[in-house]
């Protein structure tokens, strides 16, 4: 391989390793934001979705996503990908697929059956995610053909996970005690420090997520990657600050969990446009996403009454969609604010809606079927005692 090829491959591998580490971040955020009696169950779900995703994406998911297109809709599947020239791509795409899958575990935490989750997670990585991914990233998908821009996956990865989360959290129903007499109650996370560490790890990994999505670093790609790192960082920082001030205004005090979610909201929102917007654009996207996520969490919790313990729907679904739309506004090349008119915005909206519909519909069909066949939810007794002791006969915390 020539030097440029090596450089590109090296960068993809490193970025992929960073993205892998995001799994630890998700695990920590999800356990930290929920109760200690279910921590073991969340650990298991997070490890397993990555393991299932790794095997499943290699076994078939990768080619469903990147195989030769069948009608710009789906790739031609082949079993057990083994092209030794493209192992770095398999790796990078595997960790992306696992990210989409793992988002859901947070939204349905503390009440969902373990087996049901395993099955859903597999379908997510080998079917739901790769098909809509094909539309945007394979090169000949129908959304690519329209000119849809989702550089690193605000929509392809995060919104897919987020919208599936919405459907899943809705179908599973709220945790016992979450809503009483139509009022939303707070069910505090058991360890916000662990949650905060999770956010730092996610942020750390996100440099690989967005930077690696350039899929190259040689030649002109180098400055592009550096620019992506900056836009990613600025959006996250701006969003955390913005979420903090909004929460400060609303609740009279700077709220810890909202600030943490704010950082993630900024990261999700910039993911689509990290290569298309200027640093200033990134900062503005961050400010907007940080504010939005606070209101969205309140809305989903109090108005929709969908119980999402970690805010996955708002962070990944809402801010993912929002960030994708904002590309149509802030893209230096073609964005509304840069004189590009409404065309790109329209295309972005088409993609957001199409993929959102896909994710929600398929998630609904799969989960509804699972509900009928094996059930989504643990028994009331198991839920109250905690999933760890019933589903795993173990306690995470001991002397």
């Amino acid at each position, binding site marked *: 391989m020539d030097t440029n090829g090596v450089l590109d491959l090296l960068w993809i591998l490193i970025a992929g390793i960073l993205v892998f580490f995001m799994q630890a971040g998700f695990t920590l955020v999800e356990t930290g934001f929920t109760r200690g009696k279910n921590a073991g169950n969340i650990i298991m779900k997070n490890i397993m979705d990555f393991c299932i995703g790794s095997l499943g994406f290699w076994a078939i998911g990768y080619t469903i996503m990147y195989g030769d297109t069948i009608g710009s809709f789906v790739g031609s599947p082949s079993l057990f990908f083994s092209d030794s020239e493209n192992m770095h791509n398999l790796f990078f795409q595997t960790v992306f697929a696992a990210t989409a899958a793992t988002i859901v575990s947070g939204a349905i935490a503390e009440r969902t059956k373990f087996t049901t989750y395993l099955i859903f997670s597999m379908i997510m990585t080998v079917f739901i995610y790769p098909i809509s991914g094909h539309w945007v990233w394979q090169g000949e998908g129908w959304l690519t053909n329209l000119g849809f821009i989702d550089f690193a996956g605000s929509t392809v990865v995060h919104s897919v996970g987020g919208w599936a989360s919405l459907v899943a959290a809705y179908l599973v129903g709220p945790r016992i*005690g979450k809503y009483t007499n139509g009022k939303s109650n707070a069910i505090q996370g058991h360890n916000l420090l662990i949650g905060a560490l999770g956010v730092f790890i996610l942020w750390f990994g996100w440099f690989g997520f967005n930077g690696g999505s350039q899929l190259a670093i040689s030649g002109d790609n180098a400055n592009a990657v550096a620019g992506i790192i900056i836009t990613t960082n600025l959006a996250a920082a701006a969003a955390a600050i913005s979420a903090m001030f909004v929460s400060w205004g609303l609740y009279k005090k700077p709220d810890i969990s909202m600030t943490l979610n704010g950082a993630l909201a900024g990261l999700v929102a910039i993911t689509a446009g990290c290569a298309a917007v200027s640093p200033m654009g990134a900062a503005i996207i961050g400010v907007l996403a940080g504010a939005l996520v606070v209101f969205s969490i309140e809305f989903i919790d109090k108005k929709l009454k969908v119980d999402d313990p970690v805010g996955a729907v708002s962070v990944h679904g809402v801010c993912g969609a929002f960030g994708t739309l904002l590309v149509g506004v802030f893209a230096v090349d073609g964005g509304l604010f840069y004189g590009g008119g409404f065309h790109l915005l329209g295309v972005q909206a088409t993609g957001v809606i199409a993929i959102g519909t896909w994710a929600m519909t398929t998630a609904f069909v799969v989960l509804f079927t699972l509900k009928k066949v094996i059930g989504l939810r643990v028994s009331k*007794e198991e839920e*109250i*005692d905690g999933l760890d*002791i019933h589903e*795993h*006969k*173990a*306690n995470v915390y001991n002397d």
Partner: protein
Amino acid sequence: MKKIEAIIRKSKFDEVKEALHLIEVNFFSYWDVTGVGNEKQGHVYRGVSYSTSDIQRRFLSIVVSDPFLDRTMDVLLKTAYTGVVGDGKIFVSDIEETYRIRTKEKGSDALK
């Protein structure tokens, strides 16, 4: 004045608290203890399966003036109940004196 010490299932706590609230027993303290009793819980850890009678429980300490005793007991016996081994115990003992630190009130005045 009586002290009621109730050792109940953690999972029943919210219900019990709610019910106490309805009969206006709004003062008590609670903490988590490990209970040893008839109930057994199955555990597995690194290949060792075992059954333990050391189970997490919630300990409620409620001091009430005498007229409140019966209704508090009724509520506790009713709401902490599941019928399955391990529902817990309630112990009643005598309290000689009670003070409210803030007002220096004594006796049943301190319990209002």
